[in-house]
């Protein structure tokens, strides 16, 4: 069966006055139909840029090579008009910051309805009533009134619900949720995650859930990719990753996770050391400087990602749990 998203050897470099920055450095993975994949890594590890490349939204100074196929169709070299048939309908995105991602001068109704008008060719009337029904499904009270409001009249949580409704309007095959809860209150975060779970059950779409927080993806993801400095360092089924992390970086990330039951630490423990500066050319394992297990080999030879599709690790000395 064709995977919904198939990323092969994707590299993204940003040209800069100071030289090139390799933000994504040879990443390959697949997302199957109806699968939920969590993508986890520190800020700057390249999570967002992978999907920006898929959506054709990379910045002007970016150059992407490799291949990103969506339901078999190559997206990287695609013409904007070809991309426009896919993005917004079959491939959609819930952005990170709901406060700034809606157009300030357009009513919510227009911003929702135009998706249907553009992709389905419906009338504005039909599109609006469909949008109202969709708002109801994402538990927005008084959907008809919301359609006539401007974004600034809605709270952050409501705006994120609007973005979620927008992402599922055309029954997508894959929704990319880029840190969908980072900008929201803690109480609203849980509601939004619950909503995503419910919609996945209803629409049966695949979900790419991006976060720098393992706890966020824990409840939803089938499989988790851990990224470090532009590369995937570990891939595992979610339950397996939590029980038996194999990459030292994953293990450190798990230690940073607050336990649900235990008392909340005043300050969360954070990972010691700094990730490599983007643009630094590496012969070694990028994590070696911060790794307690690092040996000479780690500083001389970069480990490749090896193993079967649902249990890969890029480490010379992975943790064993036998």
């Amino acid at each position, binding site marked *: 069966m064709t995977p919904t998203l198939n990323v092969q050897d994707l590299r993204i470099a940003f040209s800069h006055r100071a030289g090139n920055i390799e933000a994504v450095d040879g990443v390959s993975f697949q997302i199957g139909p109806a699968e939920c994949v969590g993508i986890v890594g520190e800020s700057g590890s390249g999570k967002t840029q992978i999907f920006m490349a898929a*959506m*054709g*939204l990379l910045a002007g100074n970016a150059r992407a090579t490799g291949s990103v196929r969506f339901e078999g169709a190559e997206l990287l070299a695609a013409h*904007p*008009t070809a*991309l*426009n*048939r*896919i*993005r*917004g*309908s079959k491939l*959609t*995105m819930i*952005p990170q*910051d709901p406060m*700034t*991602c*809606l*157009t*300030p*001068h*357009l009513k919510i109704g*227009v911003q929702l309805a*135009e*998706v249907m008008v*553009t*992709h389905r060719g419906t009338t504005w009337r039909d599109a609006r009533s469909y949008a109202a029904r969709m708002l109801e499904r994402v538990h927005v009270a008084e959907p008809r009134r919301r359609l006539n409001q*401007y974004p*600034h009249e809605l709270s952050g949580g409501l705006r994120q619900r609007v*973005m979620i409704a*927008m992402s599922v309007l055309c029954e997508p095959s894959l929704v990319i949720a880029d840190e969908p809860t980072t900008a929201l209150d803690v109480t609203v975060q849980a509601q939004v995650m619950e909503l995503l779970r419910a919609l996945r059950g209803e629409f049966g779409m695949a979900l790419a859930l991006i976060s720098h927080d393992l706890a966020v993806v824990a409840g939803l993801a089938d499989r988790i990719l851990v990224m470090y400095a532009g590369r995937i360092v570990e891939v595992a089924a979610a339950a397996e990753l939590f029980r038996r992390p194999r990459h030292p970086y994953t293990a450190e990330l798990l230690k940073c996770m607050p336990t649900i039951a235990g008392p909340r630490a005043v300050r969360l423990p954070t990972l010691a050391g700094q990730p490599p500066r983007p643009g630094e050319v590496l012969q070694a394992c990028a994590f070696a400087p911060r790794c307690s297990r690092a040996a000479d080999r780690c500083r001389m030879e970069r480990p490749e990602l090896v193993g079967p599709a649902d249990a890969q690790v890029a480490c010379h000395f992975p943790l064993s749990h036998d």
Partner: protein
Amino acid sequence: MIRYFFTRLASAIPALLIIVTATFFLMRAAPGGPFDQEQTLPPEIMANLQRAYGLDQPIWTQYGRYLKSLLHGDFGPSFKYKDFTVTELIGQGFPVSLQLGVMAMALALIAGILLGTFAALHRNSMADYATMSLAMVGIAIPVFVVLPFLGILFGVYLHWLPVAGWESGSIRHRALPVIALALPPLAYIARLTRAGMLEVLRSDFIRTAFAKGLPLRTLMWRHALRPALTPVAGYLVPAVASIMTGSLVVESIAGIPGIGRYLVQGALNRDYTLVLGMVVVYSTLLIGLGLLVDLLYAWLDPRVRH
């Protein structure tokens, strides 16, 4: 929003009063009087003239009288064109000037916004640099150079367009003065639009619009244009003011029977009422426009409405 608008409307009246008062007394402070240029008149005739126009009264009485007649919509008699009232003079020329100004403003807005958007979409390309360099030239060269230059090029050499004159309904007579008048604000609007557009194209909501798969044209029209025009809205009043001053020059160079010439001649002749009448017309237009711009801001960005 409506209350705010009426507050602004009410504040326009004192503003207008201050402008009229300042002009009134500044005109009187200038040396000479309206009847100086003609050969020295016998004192008794001079006194008669002064009396007929009320100039023998104390200045505060004159001021009070002027304000009173202004309240009735009467600009008073012209001191120089003795057979006409100021209202008649302005009434004849105003439609011509208004037409010239509106056409120039429309050209400046439409072409300026189109050029600015084009440059922003092709930023840092040759097309962008060429457009913006031309805009720089448009801002830098004064109207009294541009108009003769256009006249020589299109009129004298190419014989495409008449160099001067104004026939009612003739587009060909309007072309050169309108272009000359529109050029500086056009160039400025192009630069403002480009800057505003570049800013907007970088914003998150435009990224969302791209992610929705909207065609570029829809995206630009519906999502990008309005927020990008906010800087242009702020420039509208200065733009109209620049077209007004420009029209003083253009009308006299191209021999256009508008009201621009009255301001210059009126000031030279100490034609107090004519100048005051012109000032009232111009400032009312600008103040009214300022109110419209407030409404425009609210339309461009609904957050302003609160």
